[in-house]
């Protein structure tokens, strides 16, 4: 997984680790605290952490030097009560229970969960579980922290809380963090380490690495970099505009770009697709839904979705996005009101009837795998549809190419890495050309190249393939970059109600709605709004880096 990796991190440094899916980030984490080689795998060469040679010291000693917050929050918590979870480490180290109780309350205080000692862990929200995981590591008083994609499944508010917490952690900890959402972290990290296929691709100060190698990072390694940096690279390449300081954060970008002059109207690169069909494919009519344990997830929800529309359903955690999307597939039936698919009431339909027409990609991809090899998995829906093998083989290879699964055909779906499994689950749904495709949190834990490649190949399939062209796409997500990039229309859910239903660009013009539903602006929108406050003539609907670059009037007469 890792090949001749050598680097040094001094005390107190804040290192941002980037790398595509399968680049070896999680594996690196496991080397730091001795899980590799003591528990799993083997290593060569020298690894010294906090003045301890890893191979010589047991994981228990290293555990009080290096704290790891793992990628999968659910499975790293092993106790019933929050207090036992946080006290678990110190108790294992035989620390007297009086001091353990002190450490537990200090750690919970630090992460903002004081008073949660006697709550059950499984009753907490995703964001709270993340904080408990951090507190349980802090209780061991480590000097070094490795955080493996901590905000993968958090909505914007919990993400911001976590970024503040990490900011406070860096005062007396050396931090290595891997995170796809880099916009907030790039500005505060000292150093950038980029992994590619287990090798060290780049290592140096964040600004320097992004300035020199930003393009390679984005295009070849498929890694997210801050949108403002992407804009700067675009401006330098196509508009010969060069900022004095390479921007990493919003404020730096605003300083640099205020003096630029912009074209009036936005040069939107792709014209919005005209909606063809009149009869709505999905009709949601005053739907209410209550789960067995009594939680009311939906209250009087109504909207229609027409064939061919690209709709995003957004909202904070627990606002009912997944619940309403499950009504489209018949998995859930409304407790009040109706849902009609092509005019037929879902009460009368079973999931089997709808399965061929409505594709649903789950938040957790592995639950959908039914076969033992990637190839059979992708071919599965065609085989039960009774297509002949030659045609199936052709389409399967095409799909495997588009979704970057080359070379993994014969591996068992469960042995793939997080990102690889996600791409496979979308491929298995697309190949059957459903009428409607619902993607639940498609960018959960995805790096840039996989997200962009998945979405672009999705849209390429939509454009190229006649049968797929009319597909209705429903994205369930909190990732506003995805909404800005790919959805023409947005339905905002808040506590089970529809808070907004209209064009995406209009959504971003309503600041207090975004604040109430704790959605955040895509970074670029913030940039153009801040620039407009400074008097720059920036068009309002700039949502993607290429749109922003296109709207800047070049200083010299050179146009691309």
């Amino acid at each position: 997984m890792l090949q001749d990796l050598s680097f040094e991190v001094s005390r107190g440094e804040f290192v941002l680790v980037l790398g595509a899916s399968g680049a070896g980030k999680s594996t690196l984490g496991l080397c730091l605290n001795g899980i590799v080689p003591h528990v799993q795998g083997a290593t060569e060469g020298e690894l010294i952490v906090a003045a301890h040679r890893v191979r010589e010291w047991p994981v228990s000693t290293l555990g009080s030097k290096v704290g790891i917050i793992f990628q999968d929050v659910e499975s790293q918590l092993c106790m019933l009560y929050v207090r036992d979870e946080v006290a678990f480490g110190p108790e294992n180290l035989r620390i007297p229970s009086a001091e353990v109780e002190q450490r537990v309350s200090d750690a919970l205080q630090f992460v903002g969960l004081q008073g949660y000692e006697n709550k059950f862990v499984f009753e907490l929200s995703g964001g709270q579980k993340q904080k408990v995981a951090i507190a349980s590591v802090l209780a061991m008083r480590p000097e070094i922290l490795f955080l493996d994609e901590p905000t993968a499944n958090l909505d914007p508010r919990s993400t911001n809380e976590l970024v503040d917490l990490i900011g406070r952690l860096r005062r007396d900890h050396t931090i290595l963090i891997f995170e796809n959402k880099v916009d907030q972290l790039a500005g505060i990290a000292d150093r950038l380490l980029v992994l590619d296929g287990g090798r060290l691709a780049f290592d140096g100060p964040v600004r320097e690495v992004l300035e020199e190698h930003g393009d390679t990072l984005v295009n070849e390694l498929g890694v997210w970099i801050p949108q403002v940096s992407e804009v700067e690279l675009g401006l330098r390449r196509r508009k010969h505009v060069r900022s004095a300081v390479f921007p990493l954060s919003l404020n730096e970008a605003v300083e640099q770009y205020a003096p630029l002059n912009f074209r009036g109207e936005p040069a939107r690169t792709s014209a919005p697709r005209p909606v063809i069909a009149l009869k709505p494919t999905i009709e949601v009519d005053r739907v209410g839904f209550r789960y067995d344990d009594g939680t009311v997830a939906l209250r009087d929800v109504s909207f229609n979705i027409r064939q061919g529309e690209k709709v995003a359903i957004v909202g904070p955690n627990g606002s009912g996005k997944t619940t309403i999307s499950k009504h489209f597939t018949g998995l859930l039936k409304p407790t009040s009101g109706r849902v009609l698919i092509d005019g037929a009431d879902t009460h009368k339909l079973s999931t089997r009837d709808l399965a061929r027409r409505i594709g649903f990609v789950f938040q957790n991809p592995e639950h959908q795998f039914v076969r033992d090899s990637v190839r059979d998995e992708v071919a599965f829906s065609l085989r039960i549809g009774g297509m002949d093998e030659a045609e199936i083989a052709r389409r399967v290879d095409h799909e495997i190419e588009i979704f970057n699964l080359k070379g993994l055909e014969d591996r068992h779906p469960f042995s793939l890495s997080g990102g690889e499994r996600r791409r496979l689950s979308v491929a298995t749904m697309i190949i059957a050309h459903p009428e409607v495709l619902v993607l639940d949190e498609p960018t959960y834990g995805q790096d840039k190249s996989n997200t962009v490649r998945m979405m672009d190949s999705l849209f390429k399939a939509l454009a190229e393939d006649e049968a797929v062209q009319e597909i209705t796409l429903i994205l369930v997500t909190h990732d506003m970059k995805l909404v800005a990039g790919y959805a023409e229309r947005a339905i905002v859910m808040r506590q089970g109600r529809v808070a907004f239903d209209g064009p995406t660009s209009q959504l971003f013009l309503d600041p207090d709605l975004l604040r109430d539903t704790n959605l955040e602006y895509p970074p670029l929108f913030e940039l153009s709004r801040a620039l407009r406050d400074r008097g720059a003539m920036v068009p309002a609907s700039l949502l993607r880096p290429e749109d922003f670059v296109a709207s800047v009037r070049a200083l010299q007469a050179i146009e691309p």
Partner: protein
Amino acid sequence: MSQVAVREPQTTNKGRYRYTTVDIVVIAVIGVVFGILNSPMGVIYQAFQAAFGPIGSNIWGVFDISQVLAMYIVRKPGAAFINMMINGLVQMLSGNPAGAITLGWGFTQGVGTEVAFAVFGYRRFDWLACFLGGALAQEFANFWTYYIYGFGKAGLGQLLLGDLVGFFTYGVMSGLIAFGIGTFLRRAGVLKAFKAGEQPKAA
């Protein structure tokens, strides 16, 4: 290079049968998986055994997959016993109708499977060993069931018939199915962290 802390050599007892943390966790979790799948059947089982006496309690043979599979994966003495004791306790804490009696079943079924694998010296984990693991678990459990539910009065003939039926139904429905699942997991490459994942193909 910063100055490196020197550590006096320490021997950790890497005994062949020392339980690793992942062994212990998987023994517990396998029990939960089958506890979830069995809980609806648990209630059916109660009705069966009450209505048909000794034979009834031997027809529904799915109860012992958990500890046979745990032994197949971990391959260390005591794995089946610990699994079944945890099963019994978790069943009881989740409100199994038999209450503390489930601990008795846990104990006897756990011991039964341990005996089966001990007969092969904890070296064979093929279909025969798993079959015996399921079958003997039920034979031992029958002692507890007959005692608690007072089938003693049902006449020796019925009891022996019940044991015979149980030997085969549990041997097949628990033992062989556990072996099938274990082999599938090994081929899927999921058992690398356990002794089951070590040898390439030697069962």
